[in-house]
């Protein structure tokens, strides 16, 4: 059984969402995360500018 399905066995976890292998691997995929890094920085700078 896949790890995420194993965790769903617990009552408390049954009604949430758990990422699968692909979603998890994208979190530490350096190329994709470099893109996200740029996007997140822009988004955060906008919020910071709106707040000052």
């Amino acid at each position: 059984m896949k790890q995420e399905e194993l965790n769903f066995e617990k009552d408390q976890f049954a009604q949430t969402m758990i990422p699968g292998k692909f979603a998890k691997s994208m979190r530490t995929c350096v190329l994709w995360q470099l893109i996200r890094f740029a996007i997140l920085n822009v988004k955060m700078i906008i919020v910071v500018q709106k707040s000052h």
Partner: protein
Amino acid sequence: MARLVVLGGGVAGHTTATFAAKWLGSEHEVVVVTPNAKWNWIPSNIWVGVGQMSKEEVTFDLAPVYAKAGITYKQAKAVSLNPEGNESSDKAFVSIEFTEAGREGQTEEIEYDYIVNATGPKLNFGATPGLGEGSQLGEHTVSVCTADHAVHASKKLEEAIEKMKAGTRQKFLIGTGHGMCTCQGAAFEYMFNIEHELNKAGVRDMADMKWISNESFMGDFGMGGLHMKVGGYVVNSKLFAESLFAERNVSWLIGAHTNKVENGKVGYELLDGTMGEEEFDFAMLIPPFAGVGLKAYAKDGSDITSTVFAPNGFMKVDGDYTPKKYAEWKAADWPKTYQNPTYKNMFAAGIAFAPPHIISRPMSSPNGTPINPTPPRTGMPSGIIGKAVAHSVTDLILKGENAHLHEAPMTKMGAACVASAGKGIFDGTAAAMTVFPVVPDYETYPGTGRDTDYTFGEIGLAGHWIKHVLHYLFIYKAKLNPGWTLIPE
């Protein structure tokens, strides 16, 4: 020459003092009174608590920085305020007690023209029997609220890992140590960083991990939760938070007021009134926050503490403190200028100001025990408020007492939060979130109370890189290195 006294050299106070000193120049004096010799980038204490950073990496000496900025530095704690002076003088003053090595216990009265209270929180461990005494951490649990606490926590974690390697299961209990805590985010980060380290050490399967929190739902974070954009959807932070816990096999106990801590065991009361106990081998429970307990006296020596401070010890500012029902709470209740309504030369910044009410929905158990998070005032709002107050005081000094005051209401201010879920240049992750505004405004943003175009979250390595860059950036800025004013709060 005017004198501004800033109480507290943390995120808010340091921002106020350094900007005011820059804008006022050498014709006016800025004095900082703070008991700490070192400045601490508190968010990185999480990494100290898991042995991934040293105390030296998250702190630096304040004295040379203040000398460079032309700020008079008193390593002391403020004890009381006399905003009307005393019987022999009309001049307002603050009484301080030195903490500097060799001068401990000596006192001094410092006269001021303007004063900013940025004393942050008292870590009120004493509020829960067994969690500690007053602001001192007890012997049963660990903390990451100060760099020294985090060093101690890291040693205890190392011991727990050794036990697991030797074949003894360990139960980790992380969360809040009282029904009225805030700062769940820090506990959340610590929980996930421990989980990350246990995986790296190859002992995750020997650990049972549990979250205990006063939030009535996962992802409340003292902000009543938030709706944020994740992967094209607008989702409630409940789903986001529960998912992160379920993925890591960390179970949760919420709506819990921790009412007792003993060796290896906490007692709690839940929102439905049930009492229970939870055992642990390693526990990090955030204490509730209170004001640091400053007193205030009128000219004739009478105690006016309740005029200047709210019952929780935080300073009253220009918020609307009239008790109201939850349904009547409005964004307009929140302070804008952080000026004390009674003494106009007095301001509060950061955690030290009294919020008009909590942000989360108020809750209590059938026994009448309040169990709800209190409002967070994270680093970014604390810094922005500190800067706005510095601006106001500078204008009052340079342009006269009718100068326009600068505003920084938390209802018109966002916050960028990066919550670490594990450190590592290629395998680290962090939840990068922004929320706008911090305090929901249902009149401007009917529905979720916030602007979902600017309220988003995602977890990944990019978030970790941002957190790591921010660590160096904010320490660089706090040291007043070249270009420091260009780095936003």
